[in-house]
């Protein structure tokens, strides 16, 4: 069965589309709800994800912001991911000022609102990386990894489709076998009912029967009970 994509999957796929690949995923770490570390082979970025529950707590929001800022020392870029419903609780100008990127997400997808400020001119580096992918083995690996991620996603979709088809095929097969089973017995029941009917006519003529028995469809239905 295909599993439902998690919030991490949704955010990760946005950055994978930009040429990044996932290095690690940390669900429910000490300070934040979950954290993604991605790389494009040249730079590493960290994404701290605020869950909907955490957005109800001001202290959790503040704590996550501080933790995200702290990560700037460790990674080339940092991004804060916030649920779409709670995007208003974040002042975008403050994030721009401190170079923190912003992604908003919901179950339908994720959107990059503010790109993170890279410590070493991330954008240029990314461009350089893209230009030089064929020249450097690291870039090659990065590209391959991102390609693998894309193919994996396609495979998952195919797998889900296959599951669905197999399920439908099983239902159809069981229906056919049920029909095949009942067909001979239907023929048998018809024969029995004919016998019963012929006996009824020998027992008594239709006119002699009480009114509630005459032309009663139940006689036919019940005489097929077996």
């Amino acid at each position, binding site marked *: 069965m295909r599993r439902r994509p998690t919030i991490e999957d949704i955010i990760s796929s946005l950055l994978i589309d930009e040429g990044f690949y996932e290095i690690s995923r940390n669900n429910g770490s000490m300070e934040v709800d979950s954290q993604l570390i991605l790389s494009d082979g040249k730079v590493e970025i960290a994404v701290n994800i605020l869950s909907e529950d955490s957005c109800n707590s001001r202290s959790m929001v503040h704590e996550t912001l501080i933790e995200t800022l702290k990560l700037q020392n460790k990674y080339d870029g940092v991004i804060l991911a916030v649920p779409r419903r709670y995007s208003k609780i974040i002042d975008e100008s403050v994030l721009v000022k401190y170079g923190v990127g912003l992604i908003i997400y919901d179950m339908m997808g994720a959107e990059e609102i503010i790109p993170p400020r890279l410590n070493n001119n991330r954008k240029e580096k990314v461009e350089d990386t893209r230009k030089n992918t064929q020249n450097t083995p690291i870039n090659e690996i990065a590209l391959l990894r991102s390609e693998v991620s894309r193919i994996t996603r396609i495979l998952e979709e195919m797998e889900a489709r296959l599951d669905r088809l197999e399920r439908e095929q099983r239902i159809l097969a069981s229906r056919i076998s049920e029909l095949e089973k009942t067909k001979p017995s239907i023929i048998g029941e018809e024969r029995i009912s004919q016998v019963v009917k012929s006996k009824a006519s020998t027992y008594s003529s239709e006119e002699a029967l*009480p009114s509630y028995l005459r032309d009663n469809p139940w006689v036919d239905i019940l005489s097929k009970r077996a």
Partner: protein
Amino acid sequence: MSEEYKRSHVFGIDYGTSDFKYGPITIGEVPEVTENRGYFTEKNSIMSRVMGVSRDIVVGKELPLFLESREDVAERLVYPMRNGIVERNDAKAWQVTKELTRYALENFAPSDPDFRGFYVVASLAVVAPRYMYEQLFDIFGELNTERMLVRAATIIPQPLAVAIAHKIPTCVVVESGHGNTQVCPISMYPIRNAVLALNRGGSAANILTSEILKDTGYGDLAKEEKLVRRVKEQIGLLPRRLEEAIDFARRNPDKVKREIRIEGTRIKIDLGDESWTRFLIGEYVFNPGHEIFQSYFKRGMPRPSDVKIGDTYFYGMTDMAEAIIQAVEKCSIELQPHLYSKIILSGGNFNWNTPRGLEGVAVTSDEKIRIMLKEKGIENIQATVAREPTYSVWRGCIVYGYAVPYDFKWRWERMEGWLNYA
């Protein structure tokens, strides 16, 4: 044993709460009817000595001869069923049931040496629990000790018998008796999961009639249950729409006014200016939740309550159309339109007429159900009031016994077939 023997020896028994109906296929259109009750005799009593009765219980048509004017008659006279159910541990009730069954079978058992027992089709309320089936099968077996009375037996639910007697294979049977109402969708066989029961029947309308009599100055008569029932039957009206009917009655008091006389007495009843209350009686059967009845409840009239009897919940205040909808909606969606298109209303509680001059204001039960269901958004409804409801269950039993092959064995998981005693 052959199919032919079975068909000529089918015996139907309808275990109704108040009446016990029985008879073989050869009896024709109408079964024998006796009250579902038994009297535990005192062997020293004069009547017992005179009649030479050695039995502990007397049942059937001769029972009234044994009733004595004693204070303990209430204890001795046992009505075994309540709402169609005999309590599991009520030994006296089961004794009465056994004696009635014996009485019915012995009355018709031929002395013919070729007689090898009846094929008995018994009918119980659809809400009857499994232990009732088990006990009844045991009784049939026990009756064979002296003489083979029951060759094979089966038990079917009463609504199924009604559907069979009315020759309709897919329908909803609404069976409303004295104490309760059962709504049972049927598609070739009862859809047991969809059955719904109401703790409301003709007796509820009797209670309201009694209150109306009190309010109109006939408080002394309101205590007589049988009289109240007769008054209900003669003055009760079923309104198309209650508000419109009351409005009509207030504008045309002469059209609604009616004086009734109680036969054999000097009693006359006339509701006078309160004749509009005639419409309340019918409405109460179908929709006790109407706000107009609140004033009666506030003054102490008992509200039909939800009760659990056996394994079944009987709802008190659910209106009749809602009960039908709830039952039908438990069935498959594909089946639902077919069920709404054949609704059989069975039982004395659906016996409402439209007097001349009140056409369009007072309606019959089938029309009322159609209107109520339509108001709830159900279209293409066809409701019919059962003909001769007293006998339809027994007739259904006879058809069932006649048609089901003699070699179709009883299966508990399906609750159908013949349990063979031979």
